[in-house]
């Protein structure tokens, strides 16, 4: 197979902190170094990009010395923790920003979808926005015209096509935006985690479309997602980024396995696993499952599962409740909270517990994400903390009457129906 992307020594540095009066002197220093033909004094190579620890310089390397190749028809899933450099890589590949060092060589047209609906103007109608958005993504007017009906059909918004998009529901907006992007004629498709919005049906449609594009039409797809389910479904190869470097570039299953292992922390929970505005105020320290340490937790299907997280609150939080999300194979099965509604969280040590009924989870390995928020969901003043897949546990393969082998699915309800003759 022919190579379509070749990345050599790719590095990207960002400057931390604010730009202001403080930074101008440094800019002058750099300028002075450059005209004397010297190396930029502020780009010291060697410091690792760990967002949680304080570094010595305020330059960080978001990507460091990446070398890889992508062949035509590959669907590459790019995975990694927050801040691992996934989006930076996509930004460079789609030419939104340029690397600090190194080169990328690409064969063919690149269509990038880093965000849905880029350049949509709220005042313009759906029809006008299809043309505008298509043109922004690099389509010619004739090309859009030819595909117009197909786009409208894919988005399923025919009735609203002459209404300003500001009147659209957010779902419709996303559908229309993705539909335009999905009909781009390009050899390489670069997609950031944009499908998180939109309903399940539409997400499935999008994944299907991207699958068609890579498998059927022989196009190359690069796809960033946190949803291991869709990565596994869509991608033939996986690239695991960690602190701006490639840790694994292999089969998808291998990359996902490495990612999961990276996330599983058998010792105490590190504060670095958590993100959000409350991450300095609340530290979750330990999770136990049925009173044993989560790392060794193996649970029988017939056990009731008690998940308990221990934490310390350093400064009183006015309203807070702890959330627990259980994922299996990258799919979130459920989210539940310790309290019915957020309440005052006092300073000091605390623990939160939830209970999952017996025989509810099917055998397999489950990951728990721990977090919490003040209940003001996604509104202004929302305060939150979240750690994805911080611990895992295994429900052992032991089927019983209450956990019938034939009851396949994500969750289990013991057989409890009846049969009547009439």
């Amino acid at each position, binding site marked *: 197979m022919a190579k379509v992307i070749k990345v050599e020594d790719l590095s990207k540095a960002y400057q931390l902190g604010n730009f202001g009066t403080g930074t101008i002197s440094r800019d002058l220093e750099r300028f002075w170094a450059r005209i004397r033909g010297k190396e930029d004094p502020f780009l010291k190579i060697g410091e690792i990009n760990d967002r949680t620890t304080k570094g010595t310089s305020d330059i960080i390397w978001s990507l460091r010395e990446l070398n890889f190749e992508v062949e035509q028809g590959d669907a590459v899933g790019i995975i990694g923790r927050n801040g691992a450099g996934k989006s930076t890589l996509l930004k460079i590949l789609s030419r939104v920003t340029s690397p600090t060092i190194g080169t990328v060589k690409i064969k063919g047209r690149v269509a990038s979808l880093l965000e849905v609906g880029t350049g949509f*103007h709220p005042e313009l109608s759906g029809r006008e926005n299809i043309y505008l958005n298509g*043109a922004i993504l690099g389509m010619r007017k004739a090309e859009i015209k030819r595909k117009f009906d197909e786009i409208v059909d894919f988005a399923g918004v025919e009735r609203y096509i002459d209404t300003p998009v500001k009147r659209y529901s957010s779902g419709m907006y996303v559908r229309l935006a993705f539909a335009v992007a999905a009909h781009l004629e390009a050899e390489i498709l670069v997609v950031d985690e944009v499908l998180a919005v939109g309903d399940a049906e539409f997400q499935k449609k999008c994944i299907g479309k991207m699958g068609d594009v890579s498998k059927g039409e022989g196009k190359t797809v690069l796809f960033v997602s946190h949803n291991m389910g869709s990565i596994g479904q869509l991608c033939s190869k996986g690239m695991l980024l960690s602190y701006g470097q490639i840790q694994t570039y292999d089969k998808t299953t291998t990359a996902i396995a490495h990612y999961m292992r990276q996330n599983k922390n058998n010792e105490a929970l590190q504060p670095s696993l958590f993100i959000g505005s409350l991450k300095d105020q609340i530290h979750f320290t330990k999770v136990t499952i049925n009173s044993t340490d989560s790392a060794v937790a193996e649970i029988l299907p017939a056990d009731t599962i008690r998940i308990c997280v221990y934490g310390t609150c350093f400064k009183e939080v006015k309203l807070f409740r702890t959330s627990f999300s259980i994922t299996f194979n990258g799919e979130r099965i459920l989210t539940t909270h310790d309290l019915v509604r957020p309440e005052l969280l006092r300073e000091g040590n605390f623990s939160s517990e939830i209970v999952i009924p017996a025989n509810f989870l099917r055998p397999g390995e489950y990951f728990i994400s721990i977090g919490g928020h003040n209940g003001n969901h996604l509104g202004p003043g929302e305060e939150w903390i979240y750690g994805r897949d911080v611990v895992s546990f295994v429900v052992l393969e032991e089927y019983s009457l209450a956990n019938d082998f034939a009851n396949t699915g994500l969750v289990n309800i013991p057989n409890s129906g009846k049969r009547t003759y009439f």
Partner: protein
Amino acid sequence: MDNPQQEIWDIEISPKNNLFDLKLKDVWHYRDLLILLVRRDFVAFYKQTILGPIWFFVQPVITIITYTIVFGTLANIPVDGLPKPLFYLAGTIIWNYFSDCLTKTSTVFKDNAAMLGKVYFPRLIMPLSIVLSNLVKFSVQLILFIVLFILYFIKGQVPAPNVFILLFPLLILLIAAQGLGLGMIISAVTTKYRDLTFIVSFGVPLIMYTTTVIYPLSVVLQKYHNYSWLIKLNPVTAVIETFRYGFLGKGSFSWDLLGYSVLITMVILVTGTIIFNRVEKNFVDTV
């Protein structure tokens, strides 16, 4: 190992741009986008208004009424014997075109950061669309000027246009290039340090007084001959004077002044393009 023939790449992404490579081929490919952006600006301007495109007329009309009262009547600044509204309107529409191009282009990266940060297209499209959008606005206002001109012409208060009116396309090109070029120079600096935007926002209206929008050059030459270089220094002056001379037959036209303006405009445009080309690649990281 590799067949060398295979190593032909369409796109090469590297840290630096070639400063003189304007990627005009790319711009040409995106010409539909340019047209759609202009259309968007025009349509979005009057969406959900009752008067619609009439709003394009309101601003210059109010402006010339104010100028006529304040500068023409109260301050009694002579206007080369022309009808005052026509005199002011000629200067105003040209100055507005210049200042709109300049101020919009100077914040082009900041204003469009959301879009430019998510998708690639030749960045030059953005300032070009600003120049063209404002050209649409300018054309609408030019119609107002022509209507007013015909009215005064029928009344016999102005002579018929002379041969210098043929310079009009050049004047438009000059004024657009000046606004675009200066705007691009400023835009490069404002991506990282916003200080200059403040200077632009109060400076541009003030610089208007160093051009001949509200007074004719002849008055300056007569009264303040020693300072007239200051007025002539501004390349917009030559454009306004030539425009008035062509349409209204009055004004201080000279080939020297126009030649100087053309030269300065070219320097500004080339400098602006080079600076813009250098900044466009990485502005997303600092804007």
